[in-house]
């Protein structure tokens, strides 16, 4: 029956495209967190301080983050090409999509991290300070653990944003479900392939959201 509904679907290709999407998502998410979490902490800390040097730092990072975030992702993809070539030795393929994905998602995630950290009660930070904590103890023992539900929520939103970015990145030669949808659905007019990829992407987004919500609930003791 499935054959009749979707005569053009070639399953090995769907499988391969799905795997590509997951790889792009996993790889870019990993680096986004590795870079975005410290950046978000830096934004939060420098934003809290009233020392002039820190204010300047905050303004500089903030401006950079806003510049990247204001660029449409497709433009970022094209602008990043030379740098991608330098970094990965290739501008195309899966490896070629990771740097622009990370560049697009990191400022977004960093801002969400900053917001999650601001949600932490100032009194808790003060109590930790009063215990004689060092700055790094305050960050790792109080700030990050207290913000954990918010951080999981931030990661969920970022991952879902990355899913749609991977679809676009695929167009520039990366592969994945988005690329498949455009090649078959649009160029060859095979709507069944397009609909199937859309359904698969929807399932992926749903799964991400559900596991994200679970993690938020798991770590929330309010």
């Amino acid at each position, binding site marked *: 029956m499935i054959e009749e509904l979707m005569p053009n679907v070639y399953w090995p290709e769907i499988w391969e495209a799905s795997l590509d999407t997951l790889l792009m998502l996993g790889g870019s998410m990993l680096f986004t967190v590795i870079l975005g979490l410290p950046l978000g902490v830096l934004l939060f800390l420098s934003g809290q301080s009233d020392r002039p040097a820190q204010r300047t730092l905050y303004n500089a990072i903030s401006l950079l983050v806003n510049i990247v975030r204001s660029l449409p992702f497709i433009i970022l993809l094209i602008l990043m090409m030379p740098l991608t070539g330098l970094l990965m030795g290739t501008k195309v393929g899966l490896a070629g999509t990771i740097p622009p994905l990370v560049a697009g998602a990191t400022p977004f995630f960093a801002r969400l991290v900053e917001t999650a950290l601001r949600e932490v*009660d100032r*009194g*808790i930070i*003060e*109590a*930790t*300070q*009063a*215990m*004689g*904590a*060092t700055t790094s*103890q305050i960050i790792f*023992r*109080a700030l990050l*653990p*207290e913000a*954990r539900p918010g951080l999981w929520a931030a990661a969920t939103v970022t991952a879902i944003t990355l899913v749609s970015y991977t679809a676009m990145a695929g167009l520039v030669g990366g592969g994945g479900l988005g690329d498949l949808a455009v090649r078959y659905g649009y160029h060859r007019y095979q709507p069944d392939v397009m609909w199937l990829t859309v359904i698969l992407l929807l399932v992926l987004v749903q799964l991400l959201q559900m596991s994200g919500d679970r993690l938020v609930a798991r*770590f929330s*003791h*309010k």
Partner: protein
Amino acid sequence: MIEFEDVYKTYRAAGREIAALQPTDLNIRAGEVFGLIGHSGAGKSTLLRLINRLEEPSGGRIRVDGEDVTALDDAGLRRFRRQVGMIFQHFNLLSSRTVAENVAMPLQLAGESSRAQIDARVAELLARVGLEAHAKSYPAQLSGGQKQRVGIARALATQPKILLCDEATSALDPQTTAQVLDLLARINRELNLTIVLITHEMDVIRRVCDRVAVLDGGSVVEQGPVSDVFLHPQHPTTRRFVREAEHVDEGEQNDDFQHVEGRIVRLTFKGEATYAPLLGRIARESGIDYSILAGRIDRIREMPYGQLTLALQGGDQTLALQRLEEAEVTLEVLR
């Protein structure tokens, strides 16, 4: 033990300077419960937070056990802060940690790595505040009074010699307030801990404090032993706090005085004198009559006291006043 020398604090906010604390001298003795009372914005929190330098003083010197804590570097300050516990109005417990983990936190921060030692100390602290059964609960599952007791256990973890309390009972109902105050008084006695506590209720001062300073507009306007300040308030702000605690309205009281004749006196008894059958004896001897206009018998910490406002009529009033002067009573002639 805690000495303020000319300490002041000005905040700079939106280009304006706010003098939160005027140059202040203050002496808090080892082992006492010292109260700070004042209206909102009087500078109580500022003064308290200067002690562990959550606020940096704008000038002056603060010594603790002779050590100038205003001169400490970062590492020195962290070491010093471990000797100073602090509890807060809104408890400030970590919601991501269980009760036991919250209490363990200061020990972990101080570098204690032996799991067994931490567990033993936490169990001991939770027993002290009566929360053994809640070790594995999260703060969100506790009542306000229980949360504050966790706060107290946490503050005591590193065996501090000073405990700072910023409105520790302001978020609690009267009964829970009484329990928390009793716990603080017990800790003060048993651990010989110096406690500095902020409140805006004279009743809290009366129940647990040895000495008190009254803050108004960033200055200490009155200070001394609680029995003096409470029973004989001098400054208008102090008087207002005392009257609030006694539920006395000054206007009404003056009206009442209009209706009686004779001399109006206020007698203050302290300690054993509170229970002595003094009035009847003097009345018989001098032949005066008296009526009681207002009165209160209560305790300041453990010390019983009585304060009576009387109208005296007829008889030999000079003799009566003389006898009262001789007795262990503080006599104030109001009219």
